[in-house]
């Protein structure tokens, strides 16, 4: 007994002597993930409490001494017309973006892959990746300028006798503006994933298809697309998993009160309720609802991807 214990101890000692560096290196990352990501989850209790910022001497004390109210905030949320409007807007905007924008990066990757002139390919890539590196604030500024009453787009529309449109105040047009600007920013960049997948396709398959007399389009259809299908499916499932987010960072910058009816989403409402009106409890409850649904969605989508295509994010 004595000997096995001490032998185990020396083995542990030897392991630590050889691998201490791994533990030391892990510390800062763990401090971040525990301190900034996990510890704040304690604050989720506010969803079940009636928070008053003046209940204690500081904000932590206020959080802990505020009285429990059970599911009251959730009942209020699910009973309000606001919630259903937010949910409808969130899902509508997400689905519009998904249906319209999802295929574009795939097409762009296929097109870039067919280009044989390297310099042209490189320059095109530089240009279409560029918007990804620009902030939403700047993009908002650019489009606000281009779409204003005497902006360049309305000038063109006027010249073509199509009449002016106020994209930033028309509730329906604004949703399409969100879809378009999102596509403008991310469609080119999104192609990178598929380009990487394309390099993994066995070249012999192309040669075999060629020998069989398949033209370019048929080779794309029968070789290229099946080759990148697993990545396409994974990307699609990831999108479905994030459907309640709807790109709120973009909306937070671009929207305004005239389009709240169609463009206000869960996160933007949480921002205004929580930090605008300081209604911490309602904001936390609504946020918890979104986080839980989002978590279940992404985990199940990843599970489907792993089962069906043998690919998963983790």
């Amino acid at each position, binding site marked *: 007994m004595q000997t096995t214990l001490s032998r185990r101890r020396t083995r542990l000692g030897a392991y630590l002597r050889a691998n201490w560096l791994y533990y030391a*290196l892990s510390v800062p990352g763990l401090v971040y993930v525990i301190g900034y990501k996990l510890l704040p989850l304690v604050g989720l209790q506010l969803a079940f409490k009636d928070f008053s910022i003046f209940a204690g001497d500081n904000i932590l004390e206020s959080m802990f001494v505020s009285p429990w109210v059970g599911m009251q905030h959730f009942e209020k949320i699910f009973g309000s017309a606001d919630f259903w409007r937010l949910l409808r807007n969130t899902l509508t905007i997400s689905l519009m973006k998904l249906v319209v924008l999802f295929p574009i990066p795939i097409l762009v990757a296929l097109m870039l892959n067919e280009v044989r002139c390297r310099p042209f390919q490189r320059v095109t890539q530089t240009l279409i990746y560029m918007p990804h590196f620009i902030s939403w604030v700047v993009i908002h*500024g650019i489009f*606000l300028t281009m779409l204003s009453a005497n902006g360049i787009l309305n000038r063109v529309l006027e010249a073509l006798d199509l009449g002016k449109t106020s994209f930033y105040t028309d509730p329906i047009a604004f949703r399409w503006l969100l879809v378009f600007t999102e596509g403008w920013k991310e469609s080119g960049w999104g192609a990178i994933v598929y380009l990487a997948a394309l390099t993994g396709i066995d*070249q012999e398959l192309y040669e075999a298809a060629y020998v069989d007399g398949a033209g370019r389009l048929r080779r794309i259809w029968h070789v290229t697309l099946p080759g990148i299908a697993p990545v396409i499916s994974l990307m699609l499932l990831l999108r479905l998993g994030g459907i309640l987010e709807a790109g709120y960072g973009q909306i937070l910058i671009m929207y305004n009160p005239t389009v709240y009816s169609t463009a206000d989403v869960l996160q933007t409402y949480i921002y205004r309720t929580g930090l605008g009106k300081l209604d911490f409890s309602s904001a936390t409850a609504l946020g918890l609802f979104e986080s839980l649904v989002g978590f279940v969605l992404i985990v199940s989508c990843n599970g489907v991807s792993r089962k069906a295509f043998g690919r998963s*994010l983790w």
Partner: protein
Amino acid sequence: MAAVTQKSGGDRVLRVINVALLSLLGLVCLLPFVHMAAKSLSGRAAVSAGRVAFWPIDWTLSTYRYVLQDDLFWRTFQNSAFITIVGTLLALTITTMAAYPLSKPGFKGRKVILLLYVFSMLFYGGMISVYILMRALNLLNTLWCQIIPLVLSQYNLFIMKTFFEGLPEAIEESARIDGAGPARTLVSIVLPLSLPSLATIALFYAVAYWNGYYHAMIFVTRADAKPLQLYLYEMITTTQNLYELDPAQAAGLSSSGIQAAAIVVSSIPILIVYPFLQKYFVHGLTIGSVKG
């Protein structure tokens, strides 16, 4: 692929259409920037009348002079520069440190730590929770509350982890045989080999910090702690609303010309750096973000 290049007529038509469409796409991405640059360099009358398209009319630099003389512009520019430089260095260090052990199969505890990172990526505690944390730490209205949230991105962590996993074990083995300790091996063998990946994630972090506004919108209310993006945001939204009262009008400038100048100045740092780093991320990046 070269072996199967066909030279039929239908093929040539397809190729021309392909190049034409890609060129169009490139132009659609480029022209809005050109339009803004042209506006920022044009005289007030031409801008107000909406006559400027893609080339400046009545060249002037007065809009830039106006922007560069604004104290709040400089203050927020410096804030963003500090956040970006310090944040990127910290993030790069912490991410590399965290990723290296996770790439070692022999590292006991690896599974648990990975699970923590994945869970924290998938479950968001909400903005109120982190607001309470920052307030309790007395970090509201500082630059640190804008650095901390982005100091480790799980996506970048996984890119680095996958990269380290791809390094041949023999390289580290031979360093060990030569008598180098594990720390020495990491610093003088592994890191120099990782420069392309490090450059890639450094660019991603720098862009996230420079373009960041979300955390500042939650944590910062004092003007002197705001980042450049919030300065821009307020400039864009208020000059639209208070067009008549705009001090720039009095100075004989159009507010949209000034906005255009501010937008150009704030985008220039990224637009200069990014094309040079393109060669790195086009290759190494995505193999890390999607696990096969």
